[in-house]
């Protein structure tokens, strides 16, 4: 793999992503809301207590980052395949792996860069209002980057397996809804009707990478994670806070690895020919 080629393809992808504007706008909204929340922390009583504000901020990121990553990933491959632009790019002297990793790097960099800028600004707000451990904030930021990497990988996997942009977008919308909205009520219902034990409930929760991120993020804020219920309480008693963090980070890592392997397998398959499993509108 040649670094120059990788860099230029990454440059093209980053340019495309930033010029579409929805990513910077999405981040601006996300961190705008975040700053409002941190400023609300000036009133350290009632609903605006520091923990509640921080929890709300983490929830905001846990909701926003996956959508941004999934959508950015969905647009990486399928739309170019559908319009013949991927074919065009591949007729240049490039290797498929250079195109794939260039795309990954070019889409991760702006997502991660904008996230870090936002986190930096909120960290300043946090310091100004005199709170929190910067070490823990760093851990939370690392988990956030992990979540972006995971969501982008899932988006690219869906995109790599989709023949059209519409299917890729539909796929990531379904996946986002599953991880962010549907899994909670399903788990609650299962717990009620199947009378799941605390360990089972915990492991089922940890299977959802977004939930893993949420618990991991909250663990950087407080050691009193038993407030999250008996499942996390059981895990905390069994593994301790470090073990719990390790397990949740492991869940994120496994999901991330799986997503990227799936994306890469379908993109390359050892033969660029499979990218065109169907004739495009361009001709026969």
């Amino acid at each position, binding site marked *: 793999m040649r670094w120059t080629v990788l860099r230029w393809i990454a440059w093209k992808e980053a340019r495309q992503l930033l010029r579409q504007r929805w990513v910077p706008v999405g981040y601006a909204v996300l961190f705008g809301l975040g700053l409002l929340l941190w400023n609300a922390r000036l009133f350290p009583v009632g609903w605006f207590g520091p923990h509640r504000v921080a929890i709300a901020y983490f929830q905001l990121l846990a909701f926003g980052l996956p959508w941004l990553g999934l959508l950015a990933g969905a647009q990486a491959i399928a739309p170019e395949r559908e319009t013949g632009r991927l*074919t065009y790019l591949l007729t*240049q002297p490039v290797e498929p792996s250079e195109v794939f990793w260039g795309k990954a790097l070019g889409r991760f960099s702006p997502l991660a860069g904008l996230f870090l800028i936002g986190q930096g600004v909120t960290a300043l707000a946090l310091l100004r209002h005199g709170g929190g451990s910067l070490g823990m904030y760093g851990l939370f930021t690392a988990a956030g980057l992990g979540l972006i990497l995971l969501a982008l990988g899932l988006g690219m996997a869906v995109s790599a397996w989709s023949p059209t942009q519409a299917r890729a977008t539909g796929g990531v919308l379904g996946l986002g809804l599953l991880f962010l909205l549907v899994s909670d009520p399903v788990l609650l219902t299962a717990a009620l009707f199947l009378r799941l034990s605390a360990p089972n409930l915990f492991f089922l929760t940890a299977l959802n990478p977004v939930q893993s991120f949420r618990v991991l993020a909250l663990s950087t804020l407080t050691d009193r994670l038993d407030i999250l219920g008996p499942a996390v309480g059981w895990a905390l008693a069994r593994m301790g806070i470090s073990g719990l963090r390790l397990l949740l980070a492991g869940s994120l890592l496994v999901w991330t690895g799986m997503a990227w392997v799936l994306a890469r397998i379908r993109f390359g398959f050892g033969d660029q020919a499979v990218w065109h499993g169907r004739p495009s*509108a361009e*001709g026969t």
Partner: protein
Amino acid sequence: MMEFIVEAEIRGVVLGSRVVLRDIGLRVRPGETVVIGGPNGAGKTSLLRALLGLLPIEGTVRIGGHDVRRAHQAAMTQVGYVPQAPALFPEMTVGEHFRLFAALRGLRPSTLSEAVQAFGVSAYLNAYPGTLSGGWLQRVSLALALLGDPPVLVLDEPTAHLDRPTRALLWEVLRRKQAQGVTVLMTTHRWEDRVLEAARYLWLEDGRLVSEAFEPQWARLKAWVLRQPNEDWIRRLPPDWQILRFAPDGLGDSTCVVLRGPWASRWQAVQTLQAGGNAVIRIDWLSDEGEA
């Protein structure tokens, strides 16, 4: 020097449940021009994609001695490709396309000017593809294909979006490239695209090469000659050539001449018309069944 710059033995290409190409053997010598014709859906675009290693083929394709699938990158250094529909990236300016494609080919920015100027796109370097017409997009694609002077040009219906002056410019550039020894592989379903001299014509139908050297029997051409032409040329026309129309074109100070005759002597007929001291403004090639 290698004997064949493009060598393909394609036993089959299947897309979904449809066999789009079968039993195709193609060998192209360096500097040769191959024009692939055929009706819509015959498999012309698929054949070019298979040659570029972009379709799952049963068989082998080598360009410049490199297997297009196993050594894709090395094979593509030999190729400049123009897709049928311009496939530029909407969020990048024309200039950024040149920078990107040059970088992917390991070229320095100073080497770009020739390609940019060949199709007169320098005025549009800051434009986004969405703001350009189909013809200008095609010009940009053609100029991008010339980057780095690749020894093989693969053009998929390159005249599809071009007006007549730009088509004439394309033929001029291609003739120049032919003279430089560049190999040209081109698909078309336009009769008038068969004007390249010394070209080998292939005819594709239902995914098969039905004729390795398809030659139509008759040619029909429409020429515009400035003012009333000197009529000496009429006596010198090659045998079996007929004048179907010879009248002022009604639009300006020119005369429209439509001729029909054997395909084999078409260039002789053109030379005869020009040799009479007539200023031929333009020549269009027509399908023999087409309108005169």
